[in-house]
Every structure is written in structure tokens, then in C-alpha cells.
């Protein structure tokens, strides 16, 4: 149908792209694999850097998508995209014609079980940052046997910056997430000690460094520079972690009641089939490679009709993903309607 733009993925980036396209008089269609829109924000509790409930970001977006009468197809997993951007193929083989495509298929969480040495899925009280968000939503963070933890350790860079699992990139948002979560635990249980084990503290956004400092001064979170090398259970059901305190230069052992793994952002699992079908290139680690890193970061190639928004191309925060939704929508609009080629 005329003016149809297929949007792969209904996370924040895809919804923002759809809203912008609708406003420009186009006919966006959101194709979402899951049974609801919203992507990862459906599972996060409160967002850095402002502690805003994720719902407060998501609900107005969902409301706007509904209000604008944007077509949404749930349970519609896209498997292929035409190299000319004139349509997509859904799982099951259905083809949907379009005039351009916005790829907003987001990211997948790193599967923490691949780092066996940390015992996720083996020891009860090893959880991921995503599990912790669910616990925060329920307003209680308890050990498997229902106790309030006396000490929690948070480990950075799990499934990021790690050649062993072929994820060499930095996931960017996990440092600030780890600091945020440490503060939230201290808020919830002031008696509970929290230790963050980091290698580099990457506070890339506005206000993030200030939050890091606040975590030290006001929240008394302890940051130890060293990557945990392995975890084992103790006789009394706690966890023992080994690391090096690299600022002191000696191996270190520490026990904790709970270990939180800050799992990284990995390329979404459909990237490969979309890339092969649409002749799209994948960059390091398997995220989509945009035309260039400056004026072309939401475009694929020079004059194509395939565009990228959000974490499909690299780890980003919510604000950045939303902005790219708008940028990709404008470029998709221009590619169909013509106009100054900026």
C-alpha cells in the first residue's frame, strides 16, 4: 500500500519512529515479535539517570501509538528484508510490501550461563541485572531461601569486553546500571553492604558521573577494581568470589549472600537472517553496521531504503534510542517522498 513503512520491532525506538512517520503523513506498520509493545522497558523498574519508573516512559508512548491509530501486528517476527527496502518477510513466509523499512529490532541480553565460572543457573543466589530489575518491581530483593541479604556483590562486564564469549564491545549502559542498582539496594536495605567489582567505570551520559560519586559518598557503595575470576558456594550457603584488588595488587577473596551479574547487550538473534536476506552488513560483535558513524548513523548505505533506529546498531540508552527513532523516520520519509538529501 502507498506510503507504507515497515518497522521491525516495537521497542522505544520502533514506537518513536512510527509516531514520527505517522505525523509526517505516512503509514507506519509496527511488526513486533512478542505479544506486547515496549521491548526491554517492560521489565525495567526505575531508569537511570533520574529513577523514573520505566512505565512513565512507556505508557505515554503506548498511549500515543494507540491514539494515532498506528497499525501494530503483535506476534509478528520478521525474518527477512528485501535489499531494496520494498518489503519484509515474516516467520511463516508471509510477505509484506512496503516503501521503506526501519530496523528497530533492538538487542538481546547476554546469556549469563555461558560464563560458567560465575555459576548462573547453578548457584541459587547468582542473578543477573535483569532479574534484579524484576525483584525491584516486586519491591523485595531476597535470597533464594527468603532472607534479606547482608552483602551483595555486583560484577561489571559480564558478556561484554570478553573475547572468550566473542563479545568484545562495551555495552555502555551496564556501569551506570550497576551503580544505580547498588544504590537501590542500599536504599531498600540500609544494613546491606554493596560492592561493585569493575575494571573501568564508564559514566558516559549527563549526570552519570555525579551519580557514581553520590553512590560513594552518600550511599557508601564500595567500588573494587578487579574482575571476579570465579565463584564457588560456601558450606553455609553463601558465595565465595575470587578476584584481584588491582589497585592494591593482591588476590582477594570475599563472601557475599548474592551476586548480581551485569549482563551485557548482545546483537538481537534475528540480526543474522535480516542481514543475509537484506544484504546488510554486520559490524563487530554482530550489531548492524550503519553507513557511517556521523551523518549516516541511522542509514544503511548511500541511497537505500533501509534505516536503523536504537540498539539494533549498538548499545544505547533510552534517550538515544528514542532520538534515533525520530532521525530514522525522517530519513525513511525523505527516501520515499524525495527532498533535500541531507
Amino acid at each position, binding site marked *: 500500500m502507498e506510503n507504507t513503512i515497515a518497522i521491525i520491532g516495537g521497542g522505544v525506538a520502533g514506537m518513536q519512529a512510527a509516531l514520527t512517520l505517522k505525523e509526517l503523513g505516512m503509514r507506519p506498520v509496527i511488526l513486533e515479535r512478542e505479544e506486547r509493545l515496549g521491548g526491554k522497558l517492560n521489565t525495567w523498574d526505575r531508569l537511570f539517570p533520574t529513577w523514573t519508573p520505566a512505565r512513565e516512559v512507556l505508557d505515554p508512548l503506548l498511549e500515543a501509538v494507540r491514539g494515532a491509530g498506528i497499525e501494530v501486528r503483535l506476534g509478528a517476527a520478521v525474518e527477512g528484508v528485501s535489499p531494496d527496502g520494498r518489503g519484509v518477510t515474516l516467520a511463516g513466509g508471509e510477505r509484506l510490501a512496503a516503501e521503506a523499512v526501519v530496523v528497530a529490532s533492538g538487542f538481546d541480553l547476554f546469556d549469563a550461563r555461558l560464563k560458567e565460572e560465575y555459576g548462573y543457573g547453578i548457584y541459587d543466589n547468582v542473578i543477573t541485572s535483569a532479574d534484579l530489575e524484576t525483584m525491584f518491581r516486586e519491591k523485595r530483593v531476597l535470597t533464594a531461601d527468603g532472607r534479606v541479604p547482608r552483602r551483595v556483590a555486583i560484577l561489571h562486564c559480564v558478556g561484554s569486553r570478553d573475547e572468550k564469549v566473542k563479545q568484545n564491545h562495551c555495552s555502555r549502559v551496564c556501569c551506570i546500571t550497576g551503580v544505580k542498582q547498588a544504590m537501590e539496594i542500599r536504599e531498600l536495605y540500609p544494613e546491606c553492604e554493596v560492592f561493585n567489582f569493575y575494571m573501568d567505570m564508564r559514566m558516559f551520559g549527563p549526570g552519570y558521573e555525579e551519580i557514581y560519586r553520590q553512590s560513594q559518598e552518600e550511599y557508601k557503595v564500595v567500588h573494587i577494581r578487579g574482575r571476579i575470576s570465579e565463584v564457588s558456594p560456601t558450606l553455609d550457603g553463601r558465595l565465595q568470589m575470587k*578476584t584481584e584488588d588491582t589497585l592494591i595488587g593482591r588476590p582477594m577473596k570475599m563472601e557475599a549472600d548474592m551476586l548480581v551479574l551485569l549482563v551485557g547487550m548482545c546483537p538481537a538473534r534475528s540480526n543474522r537472517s535480516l542481514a543475509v536476506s537484506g544484504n546488510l552488513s554486520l559490524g563487530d560483535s554482530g550489531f548492524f553496521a550503519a553507513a557511517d558513524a556521523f551523518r549516516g548513523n541511522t542509514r544503511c548505505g548511500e541511497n537505500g531504503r533501509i534505516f536503523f533506529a536504537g540498539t539494533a546498531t549498538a548499545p544505547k540508552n533510552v534517550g538515544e534510542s528514542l532520538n534515533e527513532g525520530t532521525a530514522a523516520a525522517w530519513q525513511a520519509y525523505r527516501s520515499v517522498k524525495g527532498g533535500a538529501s541531507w
Partner: protein
Amino acid sequence: MVDWGYTINKPRAIAYDANDHTWENALQEAVPVLRSCIGCGNCTATCTAGNFVPFNIRKLQTLVRRGEYAGLRKELDKCMLCGKCRLVCPRGINTRKMIVTLKRLLAQPVAAGIPVAPGAASTAGQR
């Protein structure tokens, strides 16, 4: 003269410009991936030797890369070449090869075409 019990300390600073970097360069040439170390400490954390005696493989190789070789031979003798450190390195550095290379360079520096590393053979511990 009154003995105040004080001696003059050697300067603690790493004199980077004054240090002899031939050795370090030979090591980095043999194990180029060493340049990618992010100092995470996994090698030291897991090190069989370092958990029992004062021996820090991360610090040792960093010192060599700054041109600091004091006590190197004595330090390297503590390594059992078990290779555990290699298994945990997130940068995929062949730490075991690095150690073997250092040992080889130490054993035959002149044959390898490089001068004897200053202080490497001394028994004084590393700073």
C-alpha cells in the same frame, strides 16, 4: 657521626625515559597481544602461585612493559607454568607464552640479540 638509622632511599618513581626498553620491546614483539591487557586482574586472581606467595603476574608484566626489570628472574621462578591465567584472560592473551618468552629471554639474552636486562637477575624483590 651519629647514626640516625636512616638510609637514602632510591627514588620510587618509574624513570620511564631513563629505563632501557629493549627488553620490553622484545617481549611485545614475541607476544604482541600483550598490548591489549586491560589490567582486569583475572590472571592474578586465579594464579596458583600468587594465591600462596607474593607473586603478581599482572603487575609483573606491566612492570616489564614500563622497562622495570628488577628482580624479574626471582619472580618468574615462582610461576609453575600451569596456564590457568591464560584460561581466564578476557583479552585472550596467551599469558603462559608471555612467561615462557620472558624466561627464554632471561636465559639467553645475548643469544637473542638483546642486552641483559638491568637488575633482572638481582634477587631483590620488585618494587
